[in-house]
């Protein structure tokens, strides 16, 4: 298709106020105009002009990571904990390809990222030049949108457009590919009116259709067994959306459950909160989802970790789904009432509509529903029995929670059992406090994400709840933390196994533990010390509290090697292929547990 010169016609419209400077200077100026304070990056040949421009200014701070994958996760942690877009700068070729995992992670979890990738000079593109990769082609499916800047005069416009696309509607990663000559050449820049930017084609939805909201509220008021099912969309919509959610949940008195990504949108300590739902969700949350008659899904996407076997998912409920992305509605599950809009604004509309119509929840039905829920709750599905000999991972996280809940704490995780236990046992009261890789499930996310969080919140306590296998996937970022003197606390639940994979092998593959034992582990204490950090070994349940307090009170970076029970499994668990109310519970793996089916074996 043509179109290479479509944007060049604007030169004649250029305002007198436009300034002339190099492409790299325009880039930095545009980032500054966007309010960017931090860039996570790694230099290389193709981005040298940009690093030169960075060198000459003091508005933007550059954080040097140790591998480009870490830069994107750090930017994700920064974005998730602040609500602002994260910015990444990497070089061409391997710099860009190393960023792909992080971009895909941000795509799956709807995290606003602007990733600047260097590119070989325009005339070399397509020649298999040194450190050339087809970054636009490679990142097309793992970004919300991407741009190749072909003219220095276009630099400013594209940067501002990229921020708009990354942050508006359903957020996501945007790549800007920057050929070296474009950064060196002179061009014009003029700051646009950022409050009134309008994209040519992209029009994200805002409010829901009022008649649909009124109908939804009517269904909610008439419900006998309602449930709110909330997700990461609320965190993306912002603290205000979470405040409105709390108001709506209190107004109705209905139970609420949350996905992994949505934790913190509603306070976990509240009585109406049933805990997380899904594959490792609570007994009460999954049963309530299955038996409800009206499901109000707010900013979640009926992921396969939530639904279990599709034909058995909440069979008797009318389903309301509020999402800013129309493609999320009716994707996996048939929805009875889909409302397209920003979840925060729609909740506000719901509150107004509920009050205006004078709705009252059905008190008798509500009492009955809560009685049923209490019965499920009394099963105490997360109970564990901490003995004297060895620390249970659940206990370690519960103690960490108890000892940090009064502090200004941010938690990141890697991926696996420790992540699920963190979601189950760490109670989040506020949004933006919980950074985890949900959709993509990227081991190695937590440490660089913690770097990003700590950069954004230098005075706060940032803990990476980690596993020994995940930790080793991106442990080079310890050097980043050391360089910037970030007082991270890396809390490694070390069970010497790739625990979640081991658990699946035990439950689905006849306990054939193929390649999941963590052989040749380093001494984490010495590892910490060689980076100039403090290493701690935690072995004894009796001294765990003291050890954790010591970790918290140690200045600077701490790596804690918490030796936990090796073969502990994460329950409840909905095995793949089972219905979402068929859970394997702790303690009775054999008797009444759902059996893993042949079909389930083929599922992830």
């Amino acid at each position, binding site marked *: *298709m043509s179109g290479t010169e479509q944007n060049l016609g604007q030169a004649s419209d250029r305002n007198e106020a436009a300034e002339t400077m190099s492409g790299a200077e325009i880039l930095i100026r545009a980032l500054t105009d966007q309010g960017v304070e931090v860039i996570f990056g790694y230099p290389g040949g193709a981005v040298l002009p940009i690093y030169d421009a960075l060198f000459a200014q003091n508005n933007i701070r550059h954080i040097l990571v140790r591998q480009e994958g870490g830069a994107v996760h750090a930017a994700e942690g920064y974005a998730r904990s602040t609500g602002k877009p994260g910015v990444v700068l990497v070089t061409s070729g391997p710099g860009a390809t190393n960023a792909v995992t992080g971009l895909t992670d941000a795509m799956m979890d709807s995290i606003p990222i602007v990733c600047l990738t260097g590119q070989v000079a325009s005339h070399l593109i397509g020649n298999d030049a040194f450190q050339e990769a087809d970054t636009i082609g490679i990142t097309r499916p793992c970004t919300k949108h991407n741009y190749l800047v072909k003219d220095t005069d276009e630099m400013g416009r594209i940067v501002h457009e990229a921020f708009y696309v990354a942050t508006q509607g359903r957020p996501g990663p945007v790549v800007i590919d920057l050929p070296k000559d474009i950064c060196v050449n002179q061009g014009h820049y003029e700051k646009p009116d950022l409050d009134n930017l309008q994209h040519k084609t992209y029009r994200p939805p805002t409010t829901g259709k009022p008649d649909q909201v009124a109908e939804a509220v009517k269904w909610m008021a008439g419900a006998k067994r309602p449930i709110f099912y909330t997700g990461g969309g609320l965190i993306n919509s912002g603290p205000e959306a979470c405040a409105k959610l709390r108001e709506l949940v209190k107004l109705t008195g209905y139970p609420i459950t949350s996905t992994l990504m949505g934790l913190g949108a509603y306070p976990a300590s509240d009585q109406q909160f049933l805990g997380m739902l899904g594959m490792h969700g609570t007994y009460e949350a999954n049963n309530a989802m299955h038996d409800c008659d009206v499901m109000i899904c707010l900013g979640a996407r009926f992921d396969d970790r939530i639904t279990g076997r599709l034909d058995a998912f909440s069979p008797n409920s009318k389903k309301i789904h509020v999402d800013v992305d129309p493609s999320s509605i009716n994707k996996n599950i048939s929805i009875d009432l889909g409302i397209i809009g920003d979840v925060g604004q729609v909740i506000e509309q719901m509150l107004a509509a509920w009050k205006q119509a004078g709705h009252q929840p059905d008190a008798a039905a509500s009492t009955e529903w809560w009685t049923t829920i209490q019965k499920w709750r009394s099963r105490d599905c997360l109970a564990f029995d901490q003995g004297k000999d060895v620390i249970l991972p659940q206990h370690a996280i519960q103690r960490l929670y108890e000892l940090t809940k009064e502090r200004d704490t941010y938690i990141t995780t890697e991926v696996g059992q420790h992540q699920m236990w963190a979601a189950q046992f760490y109670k989040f009261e506020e949004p933006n406090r919980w950074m985890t890789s949900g959709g993509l499930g990227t081991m190695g996310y937590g440490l660089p994400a913690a770097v990003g969080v700590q950069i954004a919140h230098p005075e706060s306590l940032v803990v990476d709840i980690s596993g020994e296998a995940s930790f080793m996937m991106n442990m080079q970022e310890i050097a980043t933390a050391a360089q910037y003197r970030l007082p991270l606390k890396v809390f490694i639940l070390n069970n010497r196994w790739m625990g979640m994979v081991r658990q699946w092998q035990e439950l689905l593959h006849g306990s054939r533990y193929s390649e999941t034992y963590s052989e040749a582990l380093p001494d984490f204490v010495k590892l910490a010390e060689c980076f100039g950090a403090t290493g701690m070994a935690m072995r004894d349940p009796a001294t765990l509290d003291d050890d954790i307090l010591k970790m918290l009170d140690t200045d600077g970076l701490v790596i804690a090697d918490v030796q936990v029970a090796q073969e502990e499994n994460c329950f409840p668990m909905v095995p793949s292929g089972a219905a979402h109310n068929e859970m394997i519970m702790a303690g009775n793996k054999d008797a009444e547990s759902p059996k893993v089916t042949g079909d389930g074996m083929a599922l992830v």
Partner: protein
Amino acid sequence: MSEKPEADPKHTIAVLVDNEPGVLARVVGLFSGRGYNIDSLTVAEVDTRRDRSRINIVTSGNEMIIDQIRAQLERLVPVFNVVDLTEDGPSIERELALIKVVATGENRIEALRVADIFRARAVDSTLGSFVFEVTGDSSKVNAFIDLMEPLGLAEVSRTGVVAIARGADAM
């Protein structure tokens, strides 16, 4: 996908896009990446002043899949508008094909006769061959090709479907 493609109804979807580099790759990548079928695809710039191109896609799938395809297309940043012409009221579909038939004697005469019935024009001729140009909806083009098969069909080049809604409303 588990369903057999032929079991699902065909839909013709028109997509109006900003004519920026790579926009076709985005659309095609979406179909391949998410496992949707493409039976036919046409693309050309339709508005030079506003830099807009139109992509016509013939695809197949059940209702949920077609809705999903539409929503996924609408989600692409450079997409202005998506219309399911099959779903949204009556529409016209046309295809143009160039069909080479190599034949002599009776078959040559028969090919000309069939071409006449189909209002196909001979746009190239040698003593041993014709190239016919035929336009119509896909079933007409298919029928014509089927009839040419025993008469010496040698080569087929088809544009794929272009389509537009009937009536005064514009996309």
